């Protein structure tokens, strides 16, 4: 009943940090197992802003993070061009910023700080800023051009998973860690439960890496050590189409709703920042106040958002570590935290990697993998700063609208679905959505989801599942739409409800 196979390293968590770490370990020749309780990118890694920071946002207050960002920004553009859009970014100064001390004098401080951290920052004329990004607030007094970009979080996670798989990693989604096995002062493995079947198993490894994001707090407790985190919720709104082609930021101290990021077919305004309890991390809600704040502040970046349809709202939790705790841990930088629990707690074979950002995942993985290799006595060095990241090969949008499409809004074809099911570990419609963008478009799956469920069930050879797959998907989409249920989104919701209530009533009668 128990898997007695011995791994070099077990990685807990299939977010970008876990996936990146698994890949790095695999590239260094280790035998790796990754377990994820849900699907990859179902935590913060699939619920963020998708901004490829240039570091400019941190330049004034946190130069170390700024330097980290610009370094990783350049590396990702090289090794993962298929996950990146080189949009460039603008930091704009508005007339109202003047009153709060963030006028054009602050712009000078900002540019100097960027330069000190090695970030190309150049003041440009408001007229040129408008030419570069016509949707920007025309009231702007000044603008600074920086090398911000957009990163596709789903594609980045898929790519790391795909690459890890190609290098022999075992990846088990829907496998939840229920306990951490301790023998004396060492962690020697994990016990798991399959969240679909309830089946239990245990796995052994010389080193276990806790990359469970905010939930790493609970994993650490299972291992008998304590890490204090401060879960911070951030909410975002997605617009129905792309409003801007250049990232727009405010040139002032960071606050709510001050970044508009173009990502694929949409633009996303974010974020807010609210401390929450651990219990709330699994049931995130976007409040009406947050929606209002984001709309109000967003309109200052780009006035046309007020008459643009909002597709949905979502929230994620930042896995931040309390700073008091940092003093005892091995604080690599103010952002990234890697804890070797043998040094910290006298517990062998256990490492926690957390904090950081989506776009610094590679560096986080490098740091964690260095620690793993040290423990294992493996001399291999990191290659991820130059090894190209494999392309998971699901094209974003078929190039011809006359192809046989399943999802018309995002142009996902039958072939894409087949490939994702066979090669990218897709088990349900949500997984399919994260790999292909199916159902992420204007109709939120209303039209395509039955077709997709049918194709998926056929590919997996389990047609009875279809009804349940659809129900789960539609409920999840619905949840994200309720906080923005006005105007055209409301009409879409009514239409969605009509179709799905109708269909379910019909099949229920039969």
């Amino acid at each position, binding site marked *: 009943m128990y898997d007695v196979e011995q791994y070099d390293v077990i990685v807990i968590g299939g977010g970008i940090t876990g996936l990146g770490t698994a890949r790095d370990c695999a590239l260094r020749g280790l035998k790796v197992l990754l377990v994820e309780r849900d699907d990859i990118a179902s935590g913060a890694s699939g619920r963020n802003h998708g901004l490829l920071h240039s570091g400019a946002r941190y330049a004034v207050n946190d130069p170390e993070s700024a330097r980290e960002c610009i370094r990783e920004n350049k590396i990702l553009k090289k090794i993962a061009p298929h996950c990146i859009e080189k949009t460039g970014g603008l930091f704009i100064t508005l007339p109202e910023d003047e009153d709060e001390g963030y006028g054009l004098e602050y712009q000078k401080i900002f540019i100097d700080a960027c330069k000190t951290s090695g970030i190309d920052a150049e003041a440009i004329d408001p007229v040129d800023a408008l030419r570069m990004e016509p949707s920007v607030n025309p009231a702007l007094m000044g603008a600074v051009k920086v090398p911000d970009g957009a990163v596709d979080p789903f594609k980045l996670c898929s790519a790391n998973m795909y690459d890890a798989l190609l290098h022999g990693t075992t990846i088990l989604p829907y496998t939840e860690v229920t306990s951490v096995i301790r023998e004396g002062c060492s962690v020697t493995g994990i016990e798991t439960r399959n969240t679909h079947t309830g089946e239990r198993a245990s796995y052994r490894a010389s080193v276990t890496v806790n990359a469970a994001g905010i939930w790493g707090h609970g994993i650490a407790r299972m291992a008998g050590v304590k890490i204090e985190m401060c879960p911070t919720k951030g909410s975002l709104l997605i617009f129905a189409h792309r409003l801007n082609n250049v990232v727009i930021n405010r040139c002032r101290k960071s606050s709510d709703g001050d970044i508009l990021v173009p990502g694929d*077919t949409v633009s996303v305004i974010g974020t807010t920042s609210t401390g929450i309890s651990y219990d709330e991390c699994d049931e995130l809600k976007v409040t009406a106040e947050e929606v209002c704040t984001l709309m109000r502040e967003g309109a200052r970046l780009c006035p046309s958002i007020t*008459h643009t*349809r909002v597709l949905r709202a979502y929230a994620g939790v930042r896995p931040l570590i309390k700073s008091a705790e940092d003093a005892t841990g091995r604080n690599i930088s103010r952002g990234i935290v890697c804890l070797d629990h043998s040094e910290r707690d006298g517990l062998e074979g256990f490492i926690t990697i957390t904090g950081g950002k989506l776009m610094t995942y590679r560096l986080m993985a490098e740091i964690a993998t260095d620690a793993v290799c040290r423990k294992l006595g493996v001399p291999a060095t990191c290659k991820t700063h130059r090894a190209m990241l494999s392309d998971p090969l699901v094209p974003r949008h078929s*190039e011809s609208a006359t192809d046989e499409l399943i999802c018309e809004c995002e142009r996902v074809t039958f072939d894409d679905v087949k490939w994702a099911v066979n090669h990218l570990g897709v088990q349900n419609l949500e997984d399919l959505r994260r790999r292909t963008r199916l159902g992420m*478009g*204007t*109709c939120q799956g209303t039209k395509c989801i039955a077709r997709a469920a049918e194709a998926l069930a056929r590919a997996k050879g389990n047609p009875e599942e279809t009804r349940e797959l659809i129900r789960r998907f539609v409920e999840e989409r619905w949840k994200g739409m309720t906080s923005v249920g006005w105007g055209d989104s409301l*009409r879409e919701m009514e*239409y969605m409800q009509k179709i799905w209530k109708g269909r379910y009533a019909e099949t229920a009668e039969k």
Partner: protein
Amino acid sequence: MENSLDQCIKCAECTVYCPVLKATDSYPGPKKAGPDGERLRLKDRVFFEDNLKMCLNCKRCEVVCPSGVKIADIIQRARHRHGRPIPGIRDMMLASTDLTGSLAVPFSGIINPVLKNGAVRAVLDCTLGIDRHCTLPEYAQETFESIFKKRFSRQQQSYPRKVNYFHGCYVNYNYPQLGSDFVKLMNALGFGVSLIRDERCCGVPLMSNGMFKQATRNAESNVNVLSGTEGPVIATSSTCLFTMRDEYPAVLGVDNSSIRERLTLAVKFIYESVSSGKVRLAFREGWKARAAYHVPCHMERLGWGIFTLELLGMIPGLELMELDSNCCGMAGTYGFKKENYGLSQQIGSALFSQISGRNPDFVICECETCKWQIEMSTGYKVLNPVSLLAEALDLKKTAKLNQPALP
């Protein structure tokens, strides 16, 4: 307006009514080419597909859309923004009605028989890609503008009420008879007609051939000239009217607000004048005919077909049949092109067979491109309602009824 793509709820109703999609699956259809495709094109222009030029711009999708999405405008604007800017010589010829017309009219005696010659048509087919099965519209021996100057212009001053007439290229170069009918009719109703100084082609053939820059220049010039006029500006062609009224702002981005309210169509103007008691009609006695009315797509979009039906319904001797709502498939000069000919015929087939089934004396329709297509494909003669009315009315009696009361 600009965000009309956001209004789409993806119900796919439009795809059911698109005549091109009915005929072929090599066209993505209004939903995918319009609001769906636009979202992707906003991300990257590589998602612009050349097959968007297959759109007839018939606006049938817009008529049925429950969400008010300007589907065809989105498609036309995308062609405007991303389309290939340099058309071939054929498209240029078909598009530049002003230029080709003014070159051809003086030589119409030579050109018309030549255009009818089978060998010449085969050559046009191979060299220019104008399908050999097509009958190209004949050129007139004299332009309408010159006929007007010689025969009509002097007496127009004597009428107390005035209208401006936008005749369009077709009347000017190919079918001046319609222009003459219009002037006679308006005179009988008590209106003097003036032509528009320096009228340019409305731009429809330019747009459908992808020459948006030239179309915009024409639009700007027409709006500019028309804003210097007073009183109603009347067209006999529904396509010219629709283009100037709705496509100038929506597709070309040319502001026509200074003239839009004054733009109207002859049938609508006459119907409104009659129904408000401003003018009266006297019909010829013993006149009889059976006619079938084909509502052109743009009349469908305007919702103005009703004016024609009501107006012609006043003619005592006329048995009028309304044909089912179908696109004829010509769409400007689309159907002349070799690559479109088959498709264009297929699109129009439902209309053609209904016409021959009904076997009317003639077909009525406000659009000249429908006229070419129907005449070429069915052999039935097509009349503009204005010509029909001019024929059915006793113009002398009518003129008397509408004479201003002497002081």
